[in-house]
Protein backbone atom coordinates (compact mmCIF):
# COMPACT_ATOMS: atom_id res chain seq x y z
CA UNK A 1 0.00 0.00 0.00
CA UNK A 2 1.23 3.44 -0.89
CA UNK A 3 0.95 6.07 1.84
CA UNK A 4 1.39 9.84 1.39
CA UNK A 5 2.20 12.45 4.04
CA UNK A 6 2.62 16.25 3.62
CA UNK A 7 6.03 17.19 5.06
CA UNK A 8 8.03 20.24 6.09
CA UNK A 9 11.31 18.38 5.67
CA UNK A 10 12.63 15.51 3.57
CA UNK A 11 13.14 13.32 6.60
CA UNK A 12 11.12 10.45 8.10
CA UNK A 13 11.81 11.82 11.59
CA UNK A 14 10.38 15.23 10.71
CA UNK A 15 6.86 16.19 11.73
CA UNK A 16 3.82 16.15 9.48
CA UNK A 17 3.20 19.53 7.80
CA UNK A 18 0.01 21.22 9.08
CA UNK A 19 -1.00 22.19 5.52
CA UNK A 20 -1.83 19.63 2.86
CA UNK A 21 -2.01 21.65 -0.37
CA UNK A 22 0.84 23.97 0.51
CA UNK A 23 3.23 21.52 2.16
CA UNK A 24 6.73 21.94 0.69
CA UNK A 25 7.20 18.16 0.22
CA UNK A 26 5.27 14.95 0.06
CA UNK A 27 6.52 11.70 1.50
CA UNK A 28 5.45 8.58 -0.40
CA UNK A 29 5.90 5.41 1.61
CA UNK A 30 5.45 1.90 0.27
CA UNK A 31 4.35 -0.34 3.13
CA UNK A 32 5.33 -3.50 1.27
CA UNK A 33 8.86 -2.59 0.18
CA UNK A 34 9.30 -0.11 3.07
CA UNK A 35 10.79 2.33 0.60
CA UNK A 36 10.24 6.04 1.01
CA UNK A 37 10.48 8.81 -1.54
CA UNK A 38 10.20 12.57 -1.16
CA UNK A 39 8.67 14.80 -3.82
CA UNK A 40 8.70 18.59 -4.06
CA UNK A 41 5.11 19.82 -4.01
CA UNK A 42 4.70 21.86 -7.18
CA UNK A 43 1.38 23.19 -5.88
CA UNK A 44 2.95 24.81 -2.78
CA UNK A 45 3.40 28.20 -4.42
CA UNK A 46 0.14 28.21 -6.41
CA UNK A 47 -1.93 31.35 -6.25
CA UNK A 48 -5.03 29.24 -5.74
CA UNK A 49 -6.28 25.70 -6.03
CA UNK A 50 -3.19 24.28 -4.30
CA UNK A 51 -5.30 21.54 -2.69
CA UNK A 52 -6.73 20.46 -6.06
CA UNK A 53 -3.30 20.26 -7.70
CA UNK A 54 -1.71 18.48 -4.73
CA UNK A 55 -4.57 15.95 -4.54
CA UNK A 56 -4.18 15.26 -8.26
CA UNK A 57 -0.50 14.40 -7.68
CA UNK A 58 -1.36 12.15 -4.72
CA UNK A 59 -3.99 10.35 -6.81
CA UNK A 60 -1.63 9.96 -9.78
CA UNK A 61 0.93 8.29 -7.52
CA UNK A 62 -1.58 5.53 -6.79
CA UNK A 63 -1.73 6.43 -3.12
CA UNK A 64 -4.32 4.53 -1.06
CA UNK A 65 -3.93 6.42 2.22
CA UNK A 66 -3.10 10.04 2.96
CA UNK A 67 -2.10 11.00 6.50
CA UNK A 68 -2.71 14.69 7.20
CA UNK A 69 -3.85 16.89 10.08
CA UNK A 70 -6.58 18.47 7.96
CA UNK A 71 -7.89 18.70 4.42
CA UNK A 72 -9.91 21.26 2.46
CA UNK A 73 -13.13 20.46 0.64
CA UNK A 74 -11.74 20.74 -2.91
CA UNK A 75 -8.82 18.42 -2.18
CA UNK A 76 -11.21 16.04 -0.41
CA UNK A 77 -13.42 15.88 -3.52
CA UNK A 78 -10.46 14.92 -5.71
CA UNK A 79 -9.18 12.38 -3.17
CA UNK A 80 -12.54 10.73 -2.58
CA UNK A 81 -13.11 10.40 -6.35
CA UNK A 82 -9.70 8.77 -6.53
CA UNK A 83 -10.66 6.51 -3.60
CA UNK A 84 -7.82 7.76 -1.43
CA UNK A 85 -8.62 7.42 2.28
CA UNK A 86 -7.63 10.39 4.45
CA UNK A 87 -6.39 9.59 7.96
CA UNK A 88 -6.01 12.17 10.70
CA UNK A 89 -2.37 12.48 11.70
CA UNK A 90 -1.23 12.30 15.33
CA UNK A 91 1.42 14.61 16.83
CA UNK A 92 4.86 13.24 16.09
CA UNK A 93 7.09 12.25 13.20
CA UNK A 94 6.13 10.83 9.82
CA UNK A 95 7.65 7.51 10.92
CA UNK A 96 5.43 7.42 14.02
CA UNK A 97 2.38 8.21 11.90
CA UNK A 98 3.16 5.44 9.43
CA UNK A 99 3.58 2.96 12.28
CA UNK A 100 0.32 4.12 13.84
CA UNK A 101 -1.51 3.71 10.52
CA UNK A 102 -0.13 0.21 9.96
CA UNK A 103 -1.11 -0.70 13.54
CA UNK A 104 -4.61 0.58 12.72
CA UNK A 105 -4.38 3.26 15.37
CA UNK A 106 -5.22 6.21 13.08
CA UNK A 107 -8.77 7.39 12.48
CA UNK A 108 -10.27 8.61 9.25
CA UNK A 109 -10.41 12.40 9.01
CA UNK A 110 -14.01 13.36 9.50
CA UNK A 111 -13.83 17.14 9.56
CA UNK A 112 -13.29 18.70 6.15
CA UNK A 113 -12.75 22.46 6.28
CA UNK A 114 -14.17 24.73 3.57
CA UNK A 115 -10.66 25.76 2.49
CA UNK A 116 -8.73 28.98 2.92
CA UNK A 117 -8.87 29.99 -0.75
CA UNK A 118 -6.07 32.50 -0.79
CA UNK A 119 -6.55 33.52 2.82
CA UNK A 120 -3.93 32.70 5.38
CA UNK A 121 -4.53 29.55 7.38
CA UNK A 122 -4.32 29.56 11.17
Amino acid at each position, binding site marked *: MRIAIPMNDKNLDAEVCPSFGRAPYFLFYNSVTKESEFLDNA*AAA*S*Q*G*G*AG*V*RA*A*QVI*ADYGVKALIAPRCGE*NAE*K*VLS*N*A*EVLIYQSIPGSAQENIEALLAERLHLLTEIHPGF*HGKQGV
Partner: protein
Amino acid sequence: MKIAVLSGKGGTGKTLVSVNLAAVADKAVYIDCDVEEPNGYLFFKPTSIDTKKVTVQMPYAKAELCNGCRKCVNFCKFNALAYIANQLIVFDKVCHSCGGCALLCPKKAIFEKEKEIAEIQKGVSGNVTVITGILKVGELSGVPVIKMLLDVQDADNELTLIDCPPGSACIVMESIQDADYCILVAEPTLFGAHNLKMVHELATLFHKPHGVVLNKCLDGQNPSEELCRQEDIKILGEIPYDEVLGLLNSKALIAVRENDKYNKLFDSLLQTVIKEAQHETVVNS
Protein backbone atom coordinates in the same frame (compact mmCIF):
# COMPACT_ATOMS: atom_id res chain seq x y z
CA MET B 1 -13.69 62.42 -16.50
CA LYS B 2 -13.48 59.33 -14.31
CA ILE B 3 -12.56 59.74 -10.67
CA ALA B 4 -11.94 56.68 -8.51
CA VAL B 5 -12.33 56.91 -4.75
CA LEU B 6 -10.36 54.34 -2.80
CA SER B 7 -8.89 53.54 0.60
CA GLY B 8 -6.79 50.82 2.14
CA LYS B 9 -9.47 49.74 4.56
CA GLY B 10 -13.23 49.77 4.91
CA GLY B 11 -15.07 52.49 6.78
CA THR B 12 -12.79 55.41 5.98
CA GLY B 13 -15.39 57.29 3.95
CA LYS B 14 -15.12 56.19 0.31
CA THR B 15 -18.87 56.10 -0.06
CA LEU B 16 -19.33 59.38 1.82
CA VAL B 17 -16.88 61.13 -0.48
CA SER B 18 -17.99 59.58 -3.78
CA VAL B 19 -21.72 59.91 -3.09
CA ASN B 20 -21.44 63.55 -2.04
CA LEU B 21 -19.11 64.52 -4.88
CA ALA B 22 -21.53 62.98 -7.39
CA ALA B 23 -24.52 64.63 -5.73
CA VAL B 24 -22.94 68.09 -5.61
CA ALA B 25 -22.07 68.06 -9.32
CA ASP B 26 -24.54 69.43 -11.89
CA LYS B 27 -24.69 66.04 -13.50
CA ALA B 28 -22.75 62.89 -12.66
CA VAL B 29 -22.58 59.12 -12.82
CA TYR B 30 -21.96 57.20 -9.62
CA ILE B 31 -20.68 53.63 -9.96
CA ASP B 32 -20.58 51.41 -6.87
CA CYS B 33 -17.76 48.94 -7.50
CA ASP B 34 -17.82 47.67 -3.92
CA VAL B 35 -19.77 44.71 -5.26
CA GLU B 36 -19.39 42.58 -2.14
CA GLU B 37 -21.15 45.17 -0.01
CA PRO B 38 -22.57 47.97 -2.16
CA ASN B 39 -24.14 50.74 -0.10
CA GLY B 40 -24.16 53.88 -2.25
CA TYR B 41 -27.70 53.09 -3.41
CA LEU B 42 -28.91 53.34 0.20
CA PHE B 43 -28.09 57.06 0.03
CA PHE B 44 -29.25 57.73 -3.52
CA LYS B 45 -32.41 55.59 -3.39
CA PRO B 46 -32.46 55.50 -7.21
CA THR B 47 -35.67 55.00 -9.17
CA SER B 48 -36.43 53.72 -12.72
CA ILE B 49 -34.17 50.75 -12.07
CA ASP B 50 -32.92 48.81 -15.03
CA THR B 51 -31.45 45.42 -14.15
CA LYS B 52 -28.83 43.36 -15.97
CA LYS B 53 -27.46 39.92 -15.11
CA VAL B 54 -23.71 39.34 -15.00
CA THR B 55 -22.67 35.90 -16.14
CA VAL B 56 -19.34 34.15 -16.57
CA GLN B 57 -18.50 31.07 -18.62
CA MET B 58 -17.92 27.84 -16.74
CA PRO B 59 -16.26 24.90 -18.49
CA TYR B 60 -17.64 21.36 -18.49
CA ALA B 61 -16.41 18.29 -20.31
CA LYS B 62 -18.35 15.78 -22.37
CA ALA B 63 -16.91 12.53 -21.05
CA GLU B 64 -17.53 10.66 -24.32
CA LEU B 65 -15.27 13.11 -26.21
CA CYS B 66 -12.50 13.41 -23.60
CA ASN B 67 -9.43 11.22 -24.16
CA GLY B 68 -7.83 12.06 -20.82
CA CYS B 69 -4.80 13.86 -22.27
CA ARG B 70 -4.89 16.37 -19.37
CA LYS B 71 -3.72 19.31 -21.46
CA CYS B 72 -6.43 21.37 -19.79
CA VAL B 73 -5.47 20.24 -16.28
CA ASN B 74 -1.82 21.12 -16.82
CA PHE B 75 -2.69 24.41 -18.49
CA CYS B 76 -4.98 25.77 -15.76
CA LYS B 77 -2.87 28.17 -13.68
CA PHE B 78 -5.67 28.40 -11.13
CA ASN B 79 -5.77 24.61 -10.60
CA ALA B 80 -9.50 24.56 -11.22
CA LEU B 81 -9.40 21.21 -13.03
CA ALA B 82 -8.57 17.68 -11.94
CA TYR B 83 -8.66 14.45 -13.91
CA ILE B 84 -9.53 11.53 -11.68
CA ALA B 85 -10.88 8.07 -12.46
CA ASN B 86 -11.27 8.91 -16.17
CA GLN B 87 -13.31 11.98 -15.42
CA LEU B 88 -12.63 15.70 -15.57
CA ILE B 89 -13.68 17.54 -12.41
CA VAL B 90 -14.23 21.31 -12.64
CA PHE B 91 -14.04 23.42 -9.49
CA ASP B 92 -16.35 26.32 -10.31
CA LYS B 93 -15.21 28.45 -7.40
CA VAL B 94 -11.55 28.14 -8.35
CA CYS B 95 -12.17 28.76 -12.08
CA HIS B 96 -11.46 32.30 -13.34
CA SER B 97 -13.42 31.78 -16.60
CA CYS B 98 -10.41 32.42 -18.82
CA GLY B 99 -11.69 29.92 -21.41
CA GLY B 100 -8.18 28.50 -21.97
CA CYS B 101 -9.15 24.87 -21.33
CA ALA B 102 -11.89 24.90 -23.97
CA LEU B 103 -9.57 26.57 -26.51
CA LEU B 104 -6.77 24.13 -25.87
CA CYS B 105 -8.69 20.83 -25.81
CA PRO B 106 -7.53 18.80 -28.86
CA LYS B 107 -10.72 16.72 -28.77
CA LYS B 108 -13.01 19.75 -28.41
CA ALA B 109 -14.50 17.98 -25.41
CA ILE B 110 -14.80 21.08 -23.23
CA PHE B 111 -17.88 23.25 -23.54
CA GLU B 112 -18.91 26.31 -21.60
CA LYS B 113 -22.12 27.16 -19.81
CA GLU B 114 -23.19 30.49 -18.40
CA LYS B 115 -23.24 30.99 -14.68
CA GLU B 116 -24.89 34.01 -13.11
CA ILE B 117 -22.63 35.65 -10.53
CA ALA B 118 -24.09 39.11 -10.05
CA GLU B 119 -26.63 41.74 -10.95
CA ILE B 120 -26.10 45.29 -12.13
CA GLN B 121 -28.73 47.90 -11.34
CA LYS B 122 -28.89 51.23 -13.10
CA GLY B 123 -31.21 53.94 -11.82
CA VAL B 124 -31.62 57.68 -11.38
CA SER B 125 -31.44 59.90 -8.31
CA GLY B 126 -31.97 63.55 -9.26
CA ASN B 127 -28.85 64.70 -11.10
CA VAL B 128 -27.05 61.41 -10.62
CA THR B 129 -27.14 58.18 -12.63
CA VAL B 130 -26.55 55.43 -10.09
CA ILE B 131 -24.98 52.16 -11.21
CA THR B 132 -24.57 49.39 -8.64
CA GLY B 133 -22.96 45.96 -8.86
CA ILE B 134 -24.29 43.30 -6.51
CA LEU B 135 -22.24 40.11 -6.29
CA LYS B 136 -24.16 36.96 -5.35
CA VAL B 137 -23.46 35.58 -1.89
CA GLY B 138 -20.83 32.85 -2.08
CA GLU B 139 -19.16 34.12 -5.26
CA LEU B 140 -15.45 34.66 -4.79
CA SER B 141 -14.42 37.13 -7.47
CA GLY B 142 -16.06 40.45 -8.24
CA VAL B 143 -13.62 41.27 -11.04
CA PRO B 144 -15.96 40.25 -13.93
CA VAL B 145 -18.72 42.37 -12.37
CA ILE B 146 -16.49 45.42 -12.24
CA LYS B 147 -15.46 44.96 -15.87
CA MET B 148 -19.12 45.03 -16.85
CA LEU B 149 -20.00 47.88 -14.45
CA LEU B 150 -17.43 50.13 -16.05
CA ASP B 151 -18.76 49.19 -19.50
CA VAL B 152 -22.36 50.01 -18.59
CA GLN B 153 -21.59 53.68 -18.38
CA ASP B 154 -22.58 55.35 -21.64
CA ALA B 155 -20.55 58.49 -22.17
CA ASP B 156 -16.87 58.98 -21.47
CA ASN B 157 -17.15 62.72 -21.17
CA GLU B 158 -19.49 62.64 -18.19
CA LEU B 159 -18.21 63.18 -14.68
CA THR B 160 -18.04 59.70 -13.17
CA LEU B 161 -17.35 58.83 -9.55
CA ILE B 162 -16.15 55.26 -9.01
CA ASP B 163 -16.71 54.04 -5.45
CA CYS B 164 -14.05 51.33 -5.11
CA PRO B 165 -13.95 48.27 -2.89
CA PRO B 166 -11.65 48.60 0.15
CA GLY B 167 -8.05 47.42 0.03
CA SER B 168 -5.56 47.24 -2.81
CA ALA B 169 -6.18 43.81 -4.35
CA CYS B 170 -7.19 42.74 -7.91
CA ILE B 171 -10.72 44.02 -7.53
CA VAL B 172 -9.45 47.54 -6.72
CA MET B 173 -6.92 47.45 -9.57
CA GLU B 174 -9.77 46.59 -11.95
CA SER B 175 -11.83 49.48 -10.56
CA ILE B 176 -9.14 52.14 -11.05
CA GLN B 177 -7.82 50.90 -14.38
CA ASP B 178 -9.64 53.49 -16.51
CA ALA B 179 -9.70 56.27 -13.91
CA ASP B 180 -8.24 59.67 -14.79
CA TYR B 181 -7.70 60.51 -11.16
CA CYS B 182 -7.70 58.72 -7.79
CA ILE B 183 -8.94 60.16 -4.52
CA LEU B 184 -7.45 58.36 -1.53
CA VAL B 185 -9.58 58.69 1.60
CA ALA B 186 -7.70 58.34 4.89
CA GLU B 187 -8.41 58.28 8.61
CA PRO B 188 -6.33 60.15 11.21
CA THR B 189 -4.89 57.04 12.84
CA LEU B 190 -1.65 55.04 12.56
CA PHE B 191 -3.63 52.20 11.03
CA GLY B 192 -5.23 54.69 8.65
CA ALA B 193 -1.79 55.97 7.60
CA HIS B 194 -0.59 52.41 7.02
CA ASN B 195 -3.56 51.71 4.76
CA LEU B 196 -3.12 55.03 2.99
CA LYS B 197 0.46 54.05 2.24
CA MET B 198 -0.77 50.87 0.54
CA VAL B 199 -3.23 52.63 -1.78
CA HIS B 200 -0.71 55.37 -2.43
CA GLU B 201 1.71 52.68 -3.65
CA LEU B 202 -1.04 51.18 -5.79
CA ALA B 203 -1.96 54.50 -7.42
CA THR B 204 1.73 55.23 -8.03
CA LEU B 205 2.26 51.78 -9.55
CA PHE B 206 -0.64 52.38 -11.93
CA HIS B 207 0.70 55.87 -12.80
CA LYS B 208 -2.57 57.41 -11.64
CA PRO B 209 -2.50 61.04 -10.55
CA HIS B 210 -3.90 61.11 -7.04
CA GLY B 211 -4.56 63.18 -3.96
CA VAL B 212 -5.77 62.57 -0.42
CA VAL B 213 -8.95 63.51 1.40
CA LEU B 214 -8.37 63.45 5.15
CA ASN B 215 -11.58 62.27 6.77
CA LYS B 216 -12.73 62.26 10.41
CA CYS B 217 -10.27 65.03 11.26
CA LEU B 218 -9.87 65.98 14.92
CA ASP B 219 -7.58 68.44 16.64
CA GLY B 220 -4.14 67.04 17.28
CA GLN B 221 -1.92 64.59 15.50
CA ASN B 222 -2.94 63.11 12.17
CA PRO B 223 -0.58 60.31 11.08
CA SER B 224 -2.16 60.26 7.60
CA GLU B 225 -1.47 63.97 7.17
CA GLU B 226 2.12 63.43 8.31
CA LEU B 227 2.51 60.70 5.72
CA CYS B 228 1.24 63.05 3.00
CA ARG B 229 3.84 65.65 4.02
CA GLN B 230 6.66 63.09 4.14
CA GLU B 231 5.78 61.50 0.80
CA ASP B 232 4.75 64.78 -0.79
CA ILE B 233 1.21 63.63 -1.58
CA LYS B 234 -1.30 66.31 -2.48
CA ILE B 235 -3.95 66.94 0.20
CA LEU B 236 -7.22 67.76 -1.56
CA GLY B 237 -9.30 68.57 1.48
CA GLU B 238 -10.32 67.73 5.00
CA ILE B 239 -13.63 66.51 6.41
CA PRO B 240 -14.15 67.05 10.13
CA TYR B 241 -15.14 64.36 12.60
CA ASP B 242 -18.55 65.85 13.07
CA GLU B 243 -21.71 64.69 14.82
CA VAL B 244 -23.98 66.45 12.31
CA LEU B 245 -22.36 64.62 9.41
CA GLY B 246 -22.44 61.34 11.32
CA LEU B 247 -26.13 61.74 12.02
CA LEU B 248 -26.96 62.52 8.37
CA ASN B 249 -24.94 59.48 7.32
CA SER B 250 -26.60 57.19 9.84
CA LYS B 251 -29.97 58.15 8.36
CA ALA B 252 -28.65 57.41 4.85
CA LEU B 253 -29.12 61.06 3.86
CA ILE B 254 -26.81 62.78 1.39
CA ALA B 255 -25.05 65.57 3.27
CA VAL B 256 -24.80 67.98 0.31
CA ARG B 257 -28.56 67.72 -0.28
CA GLU B 258 -29.35 68.46 3.39
CA ASN B 259 -26.74 70.77 4.74
CA ASP B 260 -25.30 74.03 3.37
CA LYS B 261 -21.94 73.73 5.08
CA TYR B 262 -21.31 70.31 3.56
CA ASN B 263 -22.68 71.39 0.21
CA LYS B 264 -19.98 74.08 0.14
CA LEU B 265 -17.29 71.73 1.46
CA PHE B 266 -17.91 69.03 -1.16
CA ASP B 267 -18.45 71.57 -3.94
CA SER B 268 -15.08 73.10 -3.22
CA LEU B 269 -13.53 69.62 -2.98
CA LEU B 270 -15.02 68.70 -6.36
CA GLN B 271 -13.59 71.87 -7.95
CA THR B 272 -10.16 71.06 -6.48
CA VAL B 273 -10.29 67.49 -7.76
CA ILE B 274 -11.37 68.53 -11.26
CA LYS B 275 -8.65 71.17 -11.39
CA GLU B 276 -6.02 68.66 -10.22
CA ALA B 277 -7.20 66.03 -12.69
CA GLN B 278 -7.21 68.48 -15.61
CA HIS B 279 -3.81 69.78 -14.61
CA GLU B 280 -2.43 66.24 -14.59
CA THR B 281 -3.95 65.54 -18.01
CA VAL B 282 -2.27 68.66 -19.43
CA VAL B 283 1.06 67.84 -17.81
CA ASN B 284 0.99 64.23 -19.04
CA SER B 285 -0.24 64.83 -22.57
